[in-house]
């Protein structure tokens, strides 16, 4: 999306706001007329991505929206979604940034393999992730068994379980983003700091971290957005209980089964939240990438 060298990457977000028509003449003026063999598939591509969202707006039951959206269950699900996605992002930051640093700055055998493993949840079907989490952290799981018998902690069917499922799926986005930024950042600043007497951790904290802050922010936004939309791992690992584990995507899925109108209304809420995030963090997001 950000490939045009013009650097005016904000335009990519403008299209989300529904302004492809405004954009075309601008491009035409600056870069000459787009050749048809590129323009046609590009517009089809745009329509392909935008049309389903427009359809959601067209089919939305606007007259009954107020009733559908002010119900307690919807707010409960939305609040839980926001809280859990934020918590999952926090978890990802605390353990993901150090992991990214390790991958970018420390040479160790098998680093390529570790990097591949870290990115595995990106391509793994989320349901598989949920099953894997259940096998590892479930009450009868490899680790979960001990958590249960030693500390009395069970993770499935809890809000913590939702956060874990979301973090599992979302953290790779953060790690990849931060690692990329770290690789692009000049390590000489850190080296200068250490030669001036700072410990490596201090150098990381005072020099590296401010340097890569935009990349961390971009990764955090990506991870947050992914966590917000997480469905498969959540329903598999954490189950579905209103107020405790039922996040918006789960509410949408179950509503679709007997009340499609409610499902559309809920989907619109998620869509609005996603657009608000992208629009609100546009500058930071774009400068980072």
């Amino acid at each position, binding site marked *: 999306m950000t490939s045009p060298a013009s650097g005016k990457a904000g335009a990519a977000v403008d299209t989300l706001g529904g302004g492809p028509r405004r954009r075309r003449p601008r491009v035409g003026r600056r870069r000459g007329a787009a050749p048809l063999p590129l323009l046609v598939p590009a517009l089809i591509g745009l329509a392909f991505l935008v049309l389903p969202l427009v359809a959601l707006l067209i089919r939305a039951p606007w007259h009954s929206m107020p009733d559908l959206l002010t119900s307690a269950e919807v707010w409960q699900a939305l609040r839980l979604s926001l809280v859990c996605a934020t918590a999952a992002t926090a978890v990802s930051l605390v353990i993901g940034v150090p992991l990214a640093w390790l991958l970018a700055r420390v040479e160790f055998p098998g680093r390529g393999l570790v990097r591949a493993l870290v990115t595995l949840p990106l391509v793994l079907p989320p*349901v598989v992730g949920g099953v894997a989490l*259940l096998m590892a952290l*479930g*009450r*009868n799981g490899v680790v979960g068994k001990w958590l249960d018998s030693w500390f009395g902690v*069970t993770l*499935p*069917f809890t809000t913590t379980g939702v956060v874990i499922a979301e973090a599992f799926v979302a953290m790779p986005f953060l790690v990849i983003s931060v690692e990329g930024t770290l690789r692009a950042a000049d390590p000489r600043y850190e080296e200068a700091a250490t030669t001036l007497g700072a410990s490596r951790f201090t150098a990381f904290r005072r020099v590296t971290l401010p340097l890569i802050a935009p990349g961390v922010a971009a990764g955090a936004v990506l991870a947050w957005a992914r966590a917000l939309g997480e469905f*498969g791992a959540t*329903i598999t690992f*954490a*189950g*579905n*209980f*209103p107020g405790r*584990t*039922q996040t918006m995507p789960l509410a949408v*899925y*179950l*509503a*679709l*089964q*007997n009340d*499609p109108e409610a499902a559309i209304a809920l989907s619109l809420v998620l869509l609005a939240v996603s657009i608000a995030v992208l629009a609100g963090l546009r500058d930071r997001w774009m400068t980072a990438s």
Partner: protein
Amino acid sequence: MTRSVRRTRRTTQVAGLGAAALLALTACSSSDDDSAGTSDPSGSASASGKLSGEVTVFAAASLKESFETLGKEFEKAHPGTKVTFSFGGSDALAASITGGAPADVFASASPKTMKIVTDAGDNAGEPATFVRNQLEIATLPGNPDKVASLKDLTGSDLKVVLCDKTVPCGAAAEKALAASELKLTPVSYEEDVKSALNKVVLKEADAALVYKTDVKAAGDKVEGVEFPESADAVNDYPITLLKGSKNTATAKAFIALVQSAEGQKVLTSAGFLKP
């Protein structure tokens, strides 16, 4: 083939389940009134009464084992036919049918979900009840928590899962609990009966309210406990031919098999009750 792939994908999206099972192998034997002959892979039933082609059956998750058995029997009896199943929560299946999923037969776990399809006018002919099903408590093998009644599941430290009330098994559980004036707070409302059962099979939950047939199908992985209140929440299972069916003769024959004495034998041996 392309169509079946696309169909599978769409179903998977809507139902959120694994790909529909493709029972591909057709054994070489003939029976009944149909004479053995060459198979017709084109998918259309010929006028001669010889059945052929593919039939797609959308069926409630609780029918999985019985219908797979019946599907194999059907293919055996009618060489050249293929029965493809998509199992899932009845409501998800009904939603995908009204959403245009190409299917020939719909067997749902409650009249209420069938009504979604008939209200949309997607049925061809009247739905007929072919079996009934009753709830049972599924507990861990050996029943370590000594669950003996529905009341034992309430107010204790047991982790109980129910089906979501949007799916028939959840509606039935709600009915049974209401009839017994019990309040039960589960740890999760699962999206279909199989996922509720599997939480017990995986030992993540201590008990689940599922169908008798599911307890039976799970073998020794769970132990069933009957409870009298289940009589107040018996689910009727209706089956119907769908309007969008491209292969009505074969689809009708499959429905006939389900309703025949032979089909009923398979279903009752799985724990279903006669209608």
